[in-house]
């Protein structure tokens, strides 16, 4: 335990980056050691994808296509929504692992160490966003395997689609971190995070909003998933995006800021 060479006092930013990347490594190590939670959560969107395509596919595509019952049309319609649903599903895992983590003594240790205070949360967020992206790629691969093809999306549109998915993952992750922080245990965290998987079910992921009952349409329309899904569809399939693009970005930014402020204020409270 000889005294290490005293490092030149690092400035705030480099301290924050260094400690956050240490925490990120810790979270990725957790995810790599215990992949079952992530894989379980991945199962839901994959199952829904297969269920809706192969079991309900004929009926659904008949309803969507307005007559021409072609299953591949419905695959194209379904995949963008399920990619976003994958993010929602992955972030439930974030809420659970944050909640688990906060009950561990190691967090108390971190709080009493001279490290960047936010690094614990930043490590969770960055780790979770990376996991979301990996999950999206996996579900996307299943989609491609069963016949999903983008209709002449340009490189720029692919980049934009990727950016949107990342931004969406960031937004939901910060919200999930907040949910995890206020949940006393893993079960509560999993329950509290239910909206993240429930909202896509009542969005335009499976059926178009204008095919829903009139009284329900506002519920489906005015929530973060629908504009994001419509934007992704537009980017990958060339459908009309309209003002959904701006709406999606606005939702993402608002949720990110909200989740960040919420998580930070909960974290800065005195622990029990």
């Amino acid at each position, binding site marked *: 335990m000889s*005294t290490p060479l005293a490092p030149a006092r690092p400035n705030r930013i480099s301290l924050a980056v260094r*400690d956050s990347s240490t925490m990120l490594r810790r979270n990725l*190590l957790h995810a790599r050691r215990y992949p079952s939670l992530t894989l379980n959560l991945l199962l839901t969107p994959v199952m829904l994808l297969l269920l809706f395509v192969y079991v309900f596919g004929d009926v659904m595509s008949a309803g969507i296509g307005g007559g021409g019952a072609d299953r591949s049309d419905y695959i194209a319609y379904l995949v963008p929504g399920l990619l976003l649903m994958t993010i929602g599903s992955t972030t439930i895992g974030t809420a659970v692992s944050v909640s688990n983590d906060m009950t*561990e003594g190691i967090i108390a240790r971190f709080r*009493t160490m*001279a490290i960047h205070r936010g690094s614990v949360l930043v490590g969770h967020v960055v780790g979770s966003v990376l996991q979301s992206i990996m999950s999206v790629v996996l579900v996307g691969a299943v989609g491609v395997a069963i016949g999903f093809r983008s209709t002449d999306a340009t490189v720029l549109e692919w980049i934009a689609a990727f950016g949107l998915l990342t931004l969406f993952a960031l937004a939901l992750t910060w919200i999930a971190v907040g949910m995890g922080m206020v949940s006393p245990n893993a079960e509560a965290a999993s329950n509290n995070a239910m909206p993240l998987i429930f909202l896509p079910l009542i969005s335009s992921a499976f059926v178009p909003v204008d095919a829903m009952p009139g009284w329900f349409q506002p519920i489906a329309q005015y929530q973060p998933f629908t504009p994001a899904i419509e934007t992704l569809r537009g980017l990958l399939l060339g459908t009309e995006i309209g003002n959904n693009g701006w709406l999606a970005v606005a939702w993402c930014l608002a949720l990110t800021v909200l989740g960040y402020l919420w998580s930070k204020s909960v974290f800065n409270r005195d*622990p029990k």
Partner: protein
Amino acid sequence: MTDLAIAANGLRKSYGDKTVLDGVDLAVPKGTIFSLLGPNGAGKTTAVKILSTLISADDGVVHVGGHDLARAPHAVRAAIGVTGQFSAVDGLITGEENMLLMADLHHLSKREGRRVAAELLERFDLTAAAKKPASTYSGGMKRRLDIAMTLVGDPRIIFLDEPTTGLDPRSRHNMWQIIRELVSDGVTVFLTTQYLEEADELADRIAVLNDGKIAAEGTAEELKRLVPGGHVRLRFTGPAAYQAAASALREATRDDEALALQIPSGGSQRELRSILDWLDAAGIEADELTVHTPDLDDVFFALTAGTDVPHQPKEAVR
């Protein structure tokens, strides 16, 4: 002030209308072991949480390592190491990974980090288990890992919150040895415990915390002087012998339930012989005779009385 590692004045903390700390003053000189002793719920852990920057006090001025706790918490954190009541290890990763995590957070270089981690794992007898997840460790191993992690940053002031609670006797003695070694390196140790034996064994100074207040403070010897001397305890198996002895021995304290009598005594050979002689003369045979010298238990029970404390002499103290 400069020779104090920890100085607290008028520390107060309450949760809702429950007052946990009610004006606590502490002064811990550098390089000593200070023990905060108290029953469950006395506020020991709350005190440690405040002193280690985990939670904030409602009132009071605290300096740790010469830094003002309220104004410079970051500087305080750089000077301290904390091992809490519940293991502060990451159970999902291995012991070695826990150590390297600490090295990274203390901004050691890769090489230095590996060296320090290996050295401490060796010192705490964890090298064989280094590659196993910490969640598979026994209670004693977890505590050792916990302390090893605390030492990575070479802190000058260490808080140990009930470090031996729940450990078997051998692990407890190992832990005591570890704590003694720390202090020989010039580290200041702030130790909370509910075991009087532990405070007696380790601490230079002891403060008894009861009901959010310091009930007494001093060396173990000073505290022992606060209570009257020891006693001899006679236990009987039959009520008849017990009654006979009790009515003959007026100065003894009765414990009707246990069929036992306590006779004030210093425990010297002469005093014991006179008791034995007297028992023989009276034709009374006790089934068990034990000698109790005054220990911190007596101090503890006397100072933290008010709660239900049977089998103890009720003489007024102080």
